[in-house]
């Protein structure tokens, strides 16, 4: 039963992987692109938009199902992961705790659930796609309310258990060989306040039996929002705290914590000089952190070099995205870069459609295109 449905997806993934998906998005046959290589997730409009770049111009990609992929009505996630034509995202306990799979080529959607003790209350966090040596694709998913880690497989009604007792609020899980790193944001979800209970905790579980191999605290790390894996290091974005009354103003205590996955220790902690909203790995080899200092409507971009383990454009000289008229673009929510260093950012708009903005490496405007409302994630494949 599992293979019969699963094989279609596996074959599709394998086909795209073998066709050379790592080429630059500018490598189209003229404007006849076979797929969109820049993908934007719009959390409020519950859609995914696809684009390509041709001569400093953003070209919306028209798939067979149209320009937008509509996610299910109960979707409320903020992040996605993509492998070839396969996209995975999650909807929280408010929407019924589901892992949502999409075939970006056909628009087909499949949902899977959680068969754990709380079922629809599992409250999944960000999903991370993994591919086993046999070519089977799955997604590592933290169940924040259950403090468990699952692996979800498209075609199976419920996810499989990987590990239990994973801290207070695991926001992100990352595969590392036969281990799984769990990033515990340490928030009070049981009490319903979602307040920070302290610094984040990193836990290492064995994939096979789910046993805890190691655990250590990340100093000065409040409100972990995301993490990136590069080589043997994990870059953890600790977004920082905010003043809750009445404006929810950022407190400016965000950090980037560099963790050695092999040494199982913190290597460096770099202050953001503000609060961090997102971190994305660009095709240029840099990490791109969207940061805010004064309010959440005034953001800029920091870039981080994985090899030097330091900022390229740090808190002292951030990249300020510029609009066509030279004014600041202050509402970038997520940013990334093409292989040649050109920047992309998506703006968060609730009242209107957001924008995908193409800029040069210094943030100067090149082009923009409308996306949906509430853009929260960008992915370049």
């Amino acid at each position, binding site marked *: 039963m599992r293979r019969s449905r699963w094989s279609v997806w596996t074959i599709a993934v394998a086909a795209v992987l073998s066709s050379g998906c790592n080429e630059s998005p500018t490598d189209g046959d003229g404007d006849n692109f076979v797929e969109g290589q820049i993908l934007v997730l719009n959390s*409020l409009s519950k859609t995914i938009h696809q684009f390509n770049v041709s001569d400093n111009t953003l070209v919306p990609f028209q798939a067979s199902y149209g320009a937008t992929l509509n996610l299910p009505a109960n979707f409320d996630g903020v992040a996605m992961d993509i492998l070839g034509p396969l996209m995975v995202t999650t909807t929280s306990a408010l929407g019924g705790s589901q892992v949502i799979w999409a075939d970006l080529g056909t628009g087909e959607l499949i949902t899977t659930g959680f068969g754990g003790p709380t079922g*629809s209350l599992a409250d999944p966090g960000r999903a991370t796609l993994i591919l086993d040596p046999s070519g089977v694709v799955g997604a590592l998913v933290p169940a924040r309310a259950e403090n468990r880690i699952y692996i979800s497989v498209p075609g199976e009604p419920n996810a499989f258990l990987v590990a239990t007792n994973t801290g207070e609020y695991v926001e992100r899980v990352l595969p590392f060989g036969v281990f799984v790193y769990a990033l515990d944001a340490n928030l009070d979800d049981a009490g319903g306040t979602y307040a920070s209970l302290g610094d984040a905790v990193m836990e290492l579980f064995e994939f096979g039996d789910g046993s805890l191999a190691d655990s250590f605290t990340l100093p000065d790390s409040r409100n972990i929002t995301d993490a990136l894996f590069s080589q043997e290091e994990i870059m953890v974005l600790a977004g920082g705290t905010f003043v809750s009354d009445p404006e929810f103003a950022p407190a400016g205590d965000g950090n980037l914590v560099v963790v050695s996955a092999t040494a199982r220790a913190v290597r460096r902690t770099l202050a953001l000089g503000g609060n961090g909203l997102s971190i994305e790995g660009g095709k240029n080899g840099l990490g791109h952190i969207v940061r805010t200092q004064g309010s959440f409507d005034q953001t800029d971009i920091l870039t981080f070099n994985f090899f030097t383990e330091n900022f390229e454009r740090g808190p002292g000289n951030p990249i300020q995205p510029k609009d066509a008229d030279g004014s600041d673009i202050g509402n970038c929510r997520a940013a990334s870069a093409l292989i040649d260093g050109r920047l992309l950012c998506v703006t968060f708009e609730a*009242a209107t459609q957001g924008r995908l903005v193409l800029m040069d490496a210094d943030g100067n405007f090149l082009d923009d295109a409308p996306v949906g409302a509430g853009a929260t994630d960008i992915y370049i494949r």
Partner: protein
Amino acid sequence: MRPRRLLTVVLTTGAALSLAGPVAAVQDPARGSIELEVVDDRTGAPVGAVRVTGSSAAGPAEPRELEKGLWLIRGPAGARLDISVGAFGYRSDAFSITLAAEGRRREVRLAPDPLSLPAVRATARRSPSIGTRLVVERAELSLAGDDLGDVLRALPGVDVRGRGPGGPSAASIRGSRPEAVEVTLDGIPLTDPLSGIADLSMVPGSSLERIVTTQGPGAAGWGGGAGSIRLESRQASQGVGGRLGVGSFGRVMAEVETGASPGGTRIDAFGRFDAARNDFPFRNRIRPGTPDERRANADFAGWGALARVSTAKVPLRFLGRVDGIERGAPGRMGTAVWDLARWRESRASLGVAYGTDERNGAPRLSIGWSRNRQTYTDERVGRRESVAGDQLVATGRELLTPGVGLEWRAGWSRLTGDVVGDEARRIVAGVSLRKALDAGDGWSFVGGVSLDGSDVGFAVSPSLTVRRQVSSSTSMWVRAGQGYRLPTLGDLYLRPGLGASPNPDLAPERVRLDAELGVSMDPAGGEWRLELATFYRDTRDPIIWLPSVISVWSPLNAGRLRALGLQGAAALVPAPGWTIRMVGTVQDSRLGFEDYTDPLPYQPAWSGSASAERRGPGPDVRADVEIRGPRRTSIFGPHELPPFALLDIRVRQPFTAAGLGAVLEVGVSNVLDVAYERVELFPEPGRSLEVRLELGPAASPSLQGAAADRSFRPEAAAGEADRSSATRLPMDP
């Protein structure tokens, strides 16, 4: 022996024991007698105003009415009498009898025979009101079910949506948001000061006497940028009556009412209880392929009571009313997050009104107070929040000079509780002046201006209506006006917490233009009627709640809200006792920011309803069809709910039980078992059955064969042509 007959025997026996003369007369062997008990053949109730004649070879008899429906005829014993019995509205009966010396009783059953009267035409100008006004009376509610939302959906330009049966529901008018509709119950705002939305599920249709909907901005102090809905509490019938009902998914209901007029003072009271499990099956569409599930935590139990006293010598009216509901607060399908969340709400109101009719220059004054308490609990996360609101409203209305009306209103409201940071208060005051001018040749003009002030802002709202009576049966009108709506106390004072933050700097939203152009055709004879109106409303700086980049929701004045549409209503009387109604609305309501516009959520581009109703001898029957077009579910994205069509059927059959008038009513809702949602991911029940039994005076409207009425009747047709006010005092009429 039936009670009435028993009573007659007891009285007759008593009279015989105390009055020797009559006893001797009855026992006179030379005389004979017979008692005729004249009853309605359909219900068994005594018939009044009966004509009884009798004659014999010896001459005419002397029938005498002992009490309603009971006649005594005397004559020589053994004489043969030809008797004729008739009554207004009944088929006459004639028969022959022989008078017996010992006296006998005979039941005469008269078959109802409704009279066909020539059409009586009353000419009245349309009410010079600010907006189109639609009136629904209780007699029309009797076959429409108890759901106030269902009643309102049958009106043109009105939509009601809720989160499933038993859950809160809210109305919108002509493509508006629910916050733009002011709802009052007996003159006191039903609108929640925190959210700005009135929950119609708190007030079942059976507790109402009249519903008046005004389409267009309200008058002074009443807000309602798009319109208002005025609910008036039920007046109980004389005597004692009640209603019991059961239905699918654990539905039970009971009502009792009583009315009396001692010494000219009118006193009436009404009480109700209503509950349901609402554990209906539904298909979980976010988990396709899984078996049907049963709705959880959608149960409710509601109760209410009201008492009213109207004095005759001094025109004073007192009204007290309490309503309460305890219900589950289920979430969207597919999640158990809210499976233990409960919502409890109660509302109490008191009011007194003085005055008769301002048309003769006498002022009308009223003052009302209400207290509302809401408590939300969720055992799953140990959450408990409550908020209480108090409102005090005083109104006055007076005719200054012929054609010039003055109306004022002052209100004070306060919120206290866990969800508002500090005690939140508001004072509002407003006055409106209106002048009507009959220019002759069928032209009439009504101009008005409302001045409103509050701690949040000040507004001047003019309006002008021009009407042309084209012919005796056709009139046209055009109206333009302005309005405004204050931010809610929740917009301004909601306690900052996780995911929400108030905005104390909000300004009122302004209805820059609300206009309509309409035509009404109501030809002589009354066999059909047609009304069409096109409308346009432009609201600037509407108050919208939007999330920030970190998902903190906050209100702001943003963009522009425009609604454009056409609504129509038609009624047809194809045969005596039959009425067919059709209502339709086509509209485009959009919320725009800068150059970007999107359809307003849950406002269908097209919607309508149709009903066929038969009343008269035999069972009353009504079939309703409701259709709703596709509706966007969010301002953020392209998701839509599909269109649906529903069919409801209700049947009533009057009968007699233990000498009492009774009506058995059976209703089937969603006959075609359609799966649909009014709010995304909140399922509605499929086919459901309801059975009700009415006893006593409550059953009388149908027993008397009340004529089918028009569900969208303009208020002018109800004989209120001179009532220029768009509002009524608390406790009216």
